[in-house]
């Protein structure tokens, strides 16, 4: 794409032109999606990354006409947003790993049990707040490790629905995690050497 085209898209997007915004989306979303897939290996999370970035862009659209170097602008956004997504993915996985460990190990040092209680409580609160169907999909995905297509088949729903449910579950869980984050980070440090 030429820089001039892009400049005009940005100006039109700034004025609320959805067609121009779509042109920006078509031009930048493939690279962002691909990055999301490399980083998370999950189409659900990769789509979420694209969605998150373009929702932010649309919200800030009125400022886009002032952006000189849009490539650099969007790269900074991608770094920042993808970084946050990865952090949340890591939090979720760490908690799940701990829960898995807790289920298999018998004896644990007291301080470890306490810290696990805290993580578990945040996670469990989040999971319990999901609707039954969303929760079912999330558990099949995360606890039983089923692929999206396998979940769709098992529950007799479409793969699109599975993905929507997972997105919903992840955003709820991450909101809970973000709220409990300061403590959680400290906990993760504490746990680092002992568990892994």
């Amino acid at each position, binding site marked *: 794409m030429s820089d001039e085209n892009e400049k005009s898209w940005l100006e039109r997007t700034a004025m609320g032109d959805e067609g121009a915004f779509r042109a920006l989306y078509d031009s930048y979303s*493939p690279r962002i999606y*691909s990055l999301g897939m490399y980083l998370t290996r999950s189409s659900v999370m990769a789509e979420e990354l694209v969605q998150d970035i373009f929702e932010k862009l649309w919200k800030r659209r009125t400022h886009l006409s002032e952006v000189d170097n849009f490539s650099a602008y969007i790269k900074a956004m991608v770094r920042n947003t993808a970084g946050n997504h*990865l952090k949340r993915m890591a939090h979720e996985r760490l908690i799940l790993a701990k829960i898995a460990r807790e289920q298999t190990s018998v004896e644990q040092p007291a301080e470890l049990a306490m810290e696990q209680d805290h993580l578990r409580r945040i996670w469990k609160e989040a999971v319990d707040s999901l609707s039954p169907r969303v929760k079912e999909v999330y558990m099949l995905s995360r606890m039983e490790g089923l692929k999206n297509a396998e979940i769709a088949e098992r529950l007799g729903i*479409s793969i*699109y629905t599975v993905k929507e449910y997972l997105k*919903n579950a992840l955003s709820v869980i991450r909101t809970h995690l973000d709220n409990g984050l300061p403590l959680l980070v400290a906990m993760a440090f504490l746990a680092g050497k002992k568990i892994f």
Partner: protein
Amino acid sequence: MKEERIRQLFEGWMNGQLSESEEQEWMQLLVDPTLEDERDRIIGHYYQDLPIGHRMEPEVADALFRKILPAPVRELPQRRRRWGLLAAAVMAGAVVLTGAIWLAGRTKDTGKPVAGNVYKNDVAPGGNHAVLTLAGGATILLDSAADGNLASQGGAKVLKLDAGSLSYQRTAADMAMVYNMLSTPSGGQYQLILSDGTHVWLNALSSIRFPTAFGGSDRTVELTGEAYFEVAKDNKRPFKVHTGGMDVVVLGTSFDVNAYKDEPAIRTTLQQGSVKLVMDGKEMLLHPGQQGETEGPDGLALVKDADVDQALAWMKGFFSFEDADIQMIMRQLSRWYGIEVRYEGLRKKGSFGGKMGRDLSLTQVLTGLSQSGIHFRLEGKQLTVLP
């Protein structure tokens, strides 16, 4: 050094070469606040340098884009009252989509849809409309009745609570049983609280006949169309819903009965508790999350792949379809918008899925649906589905 280590682990992850313990170590470093700058710097490099190795399917990219732009449902003013609150609570709690997103399920046709639609007018969504028929046959149009005491009927007071709900309150014991009937037109819905505290949500084109105060041995109501029940617990007096030759027998529970005459079967969806379906001497017990339906003139069968969320979507303010054919979708729209549906040419094959607010106007819903490759012509209350 941690910076060096996180780089190595990123590299290993991208190449799929991390052992399980290395993967855990990587996760630990990803949440380390002192490494945030390094983490984002690495991501920036990958963004710039990696070839595009994964692509969204075009339909997925389209659907995602539609979700990013503010969907029409968010811009509508809140018109529903109690229904609105319920829907809002559901959205906040769990529900998946806020926008008008329809995904073409198994249809390949994804042509430019909106151009193929012809709207000569729009049709407003349904709302709180119902007629109450009293014991003597007198009727009260609830839309225009003032809130408050409407009548006294067989030992119970009839109160209109607000624009969309009616409540029966027992005032005297041991009176002879007297029946009232609440009916909704197409495009109507209403809530009813029976004298025992049972809460009924009546969907469009439906009616429920019930005693104003229940007798001593059981609680029986008659239903046509569709209603959702939250039955007040009373172990001594089972609650029965009688519809189309079938009885749903309940002790205290929440469930939906869909008994529209133009649907292929009477479908009962149990959310909580337990109910027993009784038909022609046969019985079937439902557990939470299960659906049972009538099969032929006198049979009962358990529905495979029961979908409770979908069955209850209407009373939470949504249309929700999963693997639905176009006729099924149109039957629901015709009841809610009071339209007559015709099909021109070949009927569209394929199945559709998606979710939309019931507070959208008809053309908004149709425009959403045409993303799946169906087109419409709307003239007055006559809707034609085009090939």
